[in-house]
């Protein structure tokens, strides 16, 4: 089962069995959001919102207060600059302020490049600074189910940083850990695919890298799965993200470093605005950039 099929089935079940609701803009347009939205009707719980991003977020919060556990679908993560307002300032605070939970499942969909300065890339870093929101970045069906189950068992808002490249993935991604690796990679979202490709190329050159997939971003728990491979890596670790580095990557890097004896570096989008022309785009770290960075870490160490 692909991730897209899993998302679609979770949504269908939520609408049919839980009196759930899925809201967003252009949900029923071509493709039903990459095949992730079930072809259901308004009466069955699909709510087409007006093209008003800021109020859309507020309306989703209202549905949450009404007990509908809404799935709020934002088709491009860049749109969160508008949509985030009510989620970050109301839903995230409601439980602490008034003891009233406001659980909503924010599906925020990223893509790599091709959209210039408009709306591409991942933007989970936007929510990193706000207390009261869980952040996950699932890429596989199993991870998506874990995120959903956690959401349904708790009453906090959850920001789900999705990526369009995950929709076709029909396998799970296991960590790769070597006894004496050179570097440990901590890739997030779509960069996990590039990290795997980079590791395979590096292995041909005799460089062993661990891959510890980061799916749960906030709250971040630096447990043995995270710290163990790093401690046995000669040249520390590298967090790789499709968002800018001054967000989740540096926060997680700090958390890991504080609990280990090794250094952590980050490799993310370049610190610049993307352009539409292909040569001006700003893409998540490619396998080549990851390989270069790994070698740089090894040299520097």
């Amino acid at each position, binding site marked *: 089962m692909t991730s897209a099929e899993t998302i679609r089935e979770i949504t269908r079940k939520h609408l049919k069995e839980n*009196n759930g*609701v899925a809201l967003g803009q252009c949900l029923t347009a071509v493709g039903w959001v990459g095949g992730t939205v079930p072809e259901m009707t308004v009466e069955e719980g699909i*709510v087409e*919102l*007006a093209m*008003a991003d*800021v*109020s*859309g*977020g*507020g*309306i*989703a*919060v*209202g*549905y*949450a*207060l*009404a*007990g*509908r556990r*809404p799935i709020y679908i934002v088709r491009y993560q860049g749109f969160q600059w508008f949509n985030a*307002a*009510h989620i970050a*300032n*109301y839903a995230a*605070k*409601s439980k*602490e*302020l*008034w*003891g*009233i939970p406001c659980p909503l499942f924010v599906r925020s969909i990223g893509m790599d490049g091709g959209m210039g300065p408009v709306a591409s890339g991942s933007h989970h870093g936007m929510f990193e600074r706000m207390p009261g929101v869980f952040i996950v970045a699932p890429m596989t069906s199993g991870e998506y189910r874990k995120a959903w189950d956690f959401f349904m068992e708790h009453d906090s808002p959850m920001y789900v940083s999705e990526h369009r490249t995950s929709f076709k993935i029909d396998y799970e991604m296991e960590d790769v850990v070597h006894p004496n690796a050179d570097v440990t990679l901590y890739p997030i979202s779509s960069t996990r695919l590039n990290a795997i490709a980079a590791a395979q190329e590096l292995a041909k050159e005799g460089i062993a890298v661990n891959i510890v997939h980061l799916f749960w971003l906030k709250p971040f728990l630096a447990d043995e799965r995270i710290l163990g491979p790093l401690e046995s890596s000669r040249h520390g670790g590298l967090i790789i993200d499709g968002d800018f580095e001054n967000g989740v990557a540096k926060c997680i890097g700090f958390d890991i470093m504080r609990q280990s004896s090794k250094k952590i570096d980050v490799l993310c989008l370049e610190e610049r605005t993307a352009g539409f022309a292909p040569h001006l785009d700003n893409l998540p770290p490619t396998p080549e950039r990851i390989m270069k960075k790994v070698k740089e870490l090894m040299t520097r160490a």
Partner: protein
Amino acid sequence: MASTLRVYNKHKTYHRFVSRAGFVKKLDNRIFRCIMCVMRSQDFGQISRLSESFSEDENLEVFRRICFIRYFELKVKEASDKKLIKAPIYLSVGQESVAAALSMVYQQPKIFGQHRCHDVYLAYGGDPVALRDELLHRPTGCAGGMGGSASIHSPKIGMVGHDGLLGTQVPIAVGYALGKDSKEKILSIMGDAALEEDYVMAATAFAAFKKAPILFICLDNNLSVLTEVKVRRHWTATDLAKAFKMSAVEITDDPWLIMRHTAELQQNLPALLNIHVVRHLWHNGTGCDGPPEWDRFQMVKEELARIGLKEKSENIEKKTEEEVALIWQPEFK
């Protein structure tokens, strides 16, 4: 322009007042400015002898609620002036009649209030001791001390907390209304500044489109902090509502007028009621910029006296003042 001049002359008394307040400096402003100015008055939309169409009990009860809010807020002012309250406060002095009248007619709604909402909380039966404690930063406050003046709530009366940002309660109210399966009535209260928030407009339009059962109240005091409506926009709340094909009425803050229109509008929700009110004290805090444009509290007392309820209303006022004083007495020892 000639017709505008006629309207202007008709309301020249009001114009003299607002000119002093800096509301309108010259008549050669655009026509819309004059029209907007004319609309704002203590008797805008007023219906003569309307109070007589309500029962004595109703007239006295709405007055009791007005008194309760007024005297409670004056005690909050006193507590703030004595530094017992250290956080920002947003007082409802001057606009008591709106919440009092709404609570008489629009009963048991889910309430989505704004930052200035002590009046609504009290009118709808919120625990005054819990509000007092909230303002005094205590864990026994209605929001456990977390909310302060701007973010009060009360599940008991169906009042949803507000996060303090201008107008956020409107889209949230719309989502709640659409998300609820029941026919629960919703009350969404905003100010004339919040109405200008883009997300408020969009959410109001969506409510109209989806026929959400919401009564939108715009407490129009003509001010955003101290910036007047005329320098912020050239349209009215009713213009906006009508563009969205939603029922809307613009009136002054006469409680009988509010009860009359609310009773009608709630039959055809969503609807918007823009009510001209006067904020007697500052946007935030207890300061005062001078005599208010009008004093509805006094006008209500005069109207009650006119219909033969002078003595009874005076007794109510005295009793209510004492009741509120008892609530605050331990704090002023």
